[in-house]
């Protein structure tokens, strides 16, 4: 395989994508919604920043006692603005990826251009790899535009990301691109398998629906069924008391480090029945989560949400994964720790498209071109 031929195919495919009406319309919609959500995010960010400043002032002026003693408000991160991009990325982004992939091979079969192309000095693997490269390039182009627009809007509204935040924005872009590639891989596989583009689109949408909507439901049902009934608390036991020092934060609006309502860890009792109950409850919850995770690992949406959450809000992501964990820390880790906790989801985001690309490759190499 020579790169010249591969790049010739990729260049043509990339050019076809970015000049196609379908791509331009969806991309335009994608950018408009990006701009709107970023604008809303910036407003929210500014509100949170104002509250943070007020809180800092309050903490400096007032002496706080009790479980809230020593708490520090958390400065809102610019990355919270990007959380709003996650929801439409999984919808419109997925549609964009499907739109550029579903007829990539089937259209060439229908128009018979594939046969004409193959009569020239090029191997089949160069064609399919070039098509993948061109498609990924077009999605990358869309992602770069969306991020450039977002950063431009941040600067216009005088929100300047720090170097770390800028790095996190780039990582968010890469993760989002990974999600788009996952559905692009599904679409191109179906395009290779199906004889007609219409069928390829239907097959792709069915898979999109199954992995995005049915799998999470299936995971919950499977967890309910396989984990059994939750353990019953012991009768007449003492009421648990919250241990204030381990209260964790939600920081949903970026206002406080903690809101005291999210995850109270019970403890401080010497009653063996309660201890047993707590252990059983913890084992039960972890079992449920494991079953749910196994099912959801096949869903690019779920994987994307978890990884993107780790990037945009590492503190919350860490907390979500350590609700019952004894490893809970006073100061949850940063981006690296959060990403470390979702390594399986990152791996799944890589493995999912790889499997579909491999299937595409095998099918395309064996395709009957009569």
């Amino acid at each position, binding site marked *: 395989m020579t790169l010249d*031929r591969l790049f010739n195919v990729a260049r043509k495919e990339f050019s*076809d994508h970015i000049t196609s009406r379908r791509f331009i319309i969806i991309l335009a919609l994608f950018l408009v919604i990006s701009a709107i959500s970023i604008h809303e995010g910036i407003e929210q960010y500014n509100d949170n920043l104002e509250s943070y400043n007020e809180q800092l002032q309050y903490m400096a002026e007032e002496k706080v006692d009790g479980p809230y003693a020593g708490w520090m408000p958390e400065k809102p991160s610019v990355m919270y603005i990007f959380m709003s991009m996650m929801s439409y990325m999984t919808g419109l982004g997925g549609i964009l990826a499907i739109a550029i992939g579903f007829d990539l091979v089937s259209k060439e079969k229908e*128009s018979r251009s*594939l*046969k*004409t192309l*193959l*009569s020239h000095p*090029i191997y089949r693997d160069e064609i399919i790899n070039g098509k993948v490269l061109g498609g990924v390039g077009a999605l990358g182009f869309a992602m770069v535009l969306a991020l450039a627009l977002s950063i431009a809007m941040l600067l216009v509204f005088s929100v300047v990301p720090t170097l770390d935040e800028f790095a996190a924005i780039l990582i968010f872009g890469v993760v989002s691109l990974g999600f788009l590639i996952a559905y692009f891989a599904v679409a191109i596989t179906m395009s290779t398998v199906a004889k007609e583009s219409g069928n390829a689109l239907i097959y792709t949408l069915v898979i999109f629906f199954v992995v995005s909507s049915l799998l999470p439901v299936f995971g919950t049902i499977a967890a309910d069924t396989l984990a059994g009934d939750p353990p019953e608390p012991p009768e007449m036991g003492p009421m648990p008391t919250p241990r204030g020092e381990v209260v964790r934060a939600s920081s949903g609006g970026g206002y406080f480090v903690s809101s005291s309502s999210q995850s109270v860890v019970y403890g401080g009792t010497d009653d063996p029945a309660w201890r047993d109950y707590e252990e059983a409850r913890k084992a039960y919850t972890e079992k449920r989560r494991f079953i749910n995770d196994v099912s959801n690992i096949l869903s690019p949406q779920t994987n994307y949400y978890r990884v993107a959450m780790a990037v945009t809000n590492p503190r919350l992501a860490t907390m979500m994964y350590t609700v019952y964990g004894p490893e809970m820390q006073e100061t949850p880790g940063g981006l690296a720790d959060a990403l470390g906790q979702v390594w399986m989801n990152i791996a799944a985001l890589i493995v999912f498209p790889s499997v579909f690309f491999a299937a595409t490759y095998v099918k395309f190499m064996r395709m009957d071109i009569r």
Partner: protein
Amino acid sequence: MIKTENLTKVYNGKTAVDGLNLEVGEGEIFGFLGPNGAGKSTTILMLTGMIEPTGGRCLVDGIEVAKDPLQVKKIIGYLPEDVGFYGNMTGEQNLDYFARFYGMNAKERKDRIAELLDLVHLGGVTQKAGEYSRGMKQRLGLAQALINDPNVLFLDEPTANLDPEGVREYRDLVEHLAAEGKTVFVSSHILSEVREVCRTVGLLAKGKLVAQGTLDEVARTLAPADGDAVRIVVETREHLPDIADPEIVAVERNGNRAVFRAKTDIRDRLAATLLDQGLHVREMRIEEPDIEDVFMAAYQR
């Protein structure tokens, strides 16, 4: 220039091409005849390196196609049946895309494409290929097959979508290419078309080569074996009387006209006999078997 040795292709247990042995010399215009489904296109796909044979091998200019398809593709041109293009690109853009696979620089591509578009009367056409008529696509197909100035040209049903003017131009082009020393392999199920341009033909039926040679040779090979009889058509001014000759096998009479089936050419004796009887001969000739009928019979075997 083109050679196949026991070439075989089996699709899902069905033999499409069955032990084909074929040889086409350099500079020949070879007609590959056969009914639809005979295996012509499958043979061409193997010869052009687009599918691999199940058995046997094929060589183009001494290169074994299955072993080095890319090298073969560099020296051949191929016009597929129902040729297709990228509908969102103009003819020029389509040709430019294909030309890039031959390592041609921008100027070479531009000059070659302009030359070819003029050749197929598509110069100055700015329409997208998706808006082309079938005839225009066929012309563009011919241009893309010639983009690399190939030594060997494979044409699969080349006149299928052409109007009479296009057919005439295609014939001139093929003659011109052959005069340049190029080998042209024309696959068709239309005998009249092959007859017009091809010097040698091969007849394929049910995946097997039934005959190969010049048209006359093939026609003789395929002629029904009815005792090697010679058919002599005779017409006289007067009513034809009975003629006794030991060589005559049968006579079909119709007034003053008759067709004699004889073991050998007895025209001289027949003429003398008729002259002796005072008859005036209007016509006397050997009736060749109709080539269309011969091929049709071979198709149906």
